[in-house]
């Protein structure tokens, strides 16, 4: 057994799976994550789903935090961070419930954090050999905000909106206090960078969603870039919140 594997056995790892109306995908995602992250605890954050997500979550036997109403992806993920902090986890991995993330990469993300390569390690779809297939405007939006984030933090970021991330305790502590609520993607990374947290990216394979539809496919998707721009511009005028 290598040193990293031994370190992993001693480390409390939590995999957070935020879920909103994911009754069709959740069980498969849980099974896959369980099979690849055997020593990690799992936590479903049911973000006020209106379908049977809560029942599916209960059937899987995984711990679930059921939010009384929908807070949005940022609020749901932050709930997971708060839970991790309350319960003494050292490493947290965020995985989307829609099954788009290949759980085979979980270990790589966790290892990178344990090796101290960065405080936040993002699984990037754009660093993978085969670029992700997604709608034109969504792809454009992700590329634009990744470019903007890269310029602001002066570090190349290829996939600012990836929901496949691993974080150490310091990053979890920071995000449990400071996390953008609605569309946290680029803003969270800028916040983290300004707080002195180190960010890295790893290539991960991306799969298209099998069932249901993304929350970003709603008409709010048009509103998203405007809101994100306002958040980022406002953030740049604020004082930094150092963690170290």
């Amino acid at each position, binding site marked *: 057994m290598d040193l990293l594997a031994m370190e992993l056995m001693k480390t409390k790892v939590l995999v957070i799976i935020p879920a909103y109306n994911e009754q069709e995908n959740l069980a498969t995602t849980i099974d896959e994550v369980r099979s690849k992250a055997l020593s990690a605890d799992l936590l479903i954050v049911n973000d006020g789903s209106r379908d049977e997500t809560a029942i599916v979550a209960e059937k899987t036997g995984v711990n679930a935090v059921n*939010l009384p109403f929908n807070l949005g992806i940022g609020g749901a993920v*932050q709930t997971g961070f*708060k839970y991790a902090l309350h319960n003494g986890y050292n490493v947290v991995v965020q995985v989307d419930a829609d099954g788009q993330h290949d759980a085979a990469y979980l270990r790589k993300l966790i290892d990178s954090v344990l090796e101290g390569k960065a405080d936040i390690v993002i699984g990037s779809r754009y660093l993978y050999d085969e670029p992700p297939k997604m709608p034109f405007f969504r792809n454009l939006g992700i590329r634009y905000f990744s470019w903007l984030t890269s310029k602001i933090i002066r570090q190349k970021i290829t996939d600012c909106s990836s929901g496949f991330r691993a974080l150490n305790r310091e990053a979890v502590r920071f995000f449990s206090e400071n996390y953008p*609520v609605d569309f946290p993607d680029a803003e969270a990374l800028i916040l983290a960078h300004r707080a002195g947290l180190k960010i890295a990216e790893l290539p991960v394979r991306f799969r298209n969603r099998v069932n249901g539809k993304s929350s970003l496919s709603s008409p709010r998707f048009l509103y998203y870039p405007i809101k994100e721009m306002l958040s980022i511009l406002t953030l740049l005028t604020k004082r930094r919140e150092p963690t170290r």
Partner: protein
Amino acid sequence: MSRALEIAAITGVVLIVWVLYLYRKGRLKEDHALLWLFVSAVVVVLSTWTDLLLAINWLVGAEKVSDVVLAAFVAFLLVIGIYYSVKISELTEQNRQIAQELAIIKTNGMKIEDKKQDSNNK
């Protein structure tokens, strides 16, 4: 006093009574009640003290007294709109924090209950 000013004065008095009623019933908090009482008092004072209204009219160089009243009303609505947006934003943030804490406490409580049951069964 013109008919319009008489109506304004009566409206101001009715507003004061209504605000006091809502406050007594506990449907308005102190700071909100004070705000609306102040606004109602301003309406009553301006509509009964014609000289003051004319002085303001002369000061801002408006053509008609009604222009001053209308402009003041629109400005007030803008300020009050922003004030309530701020309040709603604060409440949304507090609501989010409470929802998160409540959900975590419930989950942790259930975990403790499960552990207790397991140890009782053993």
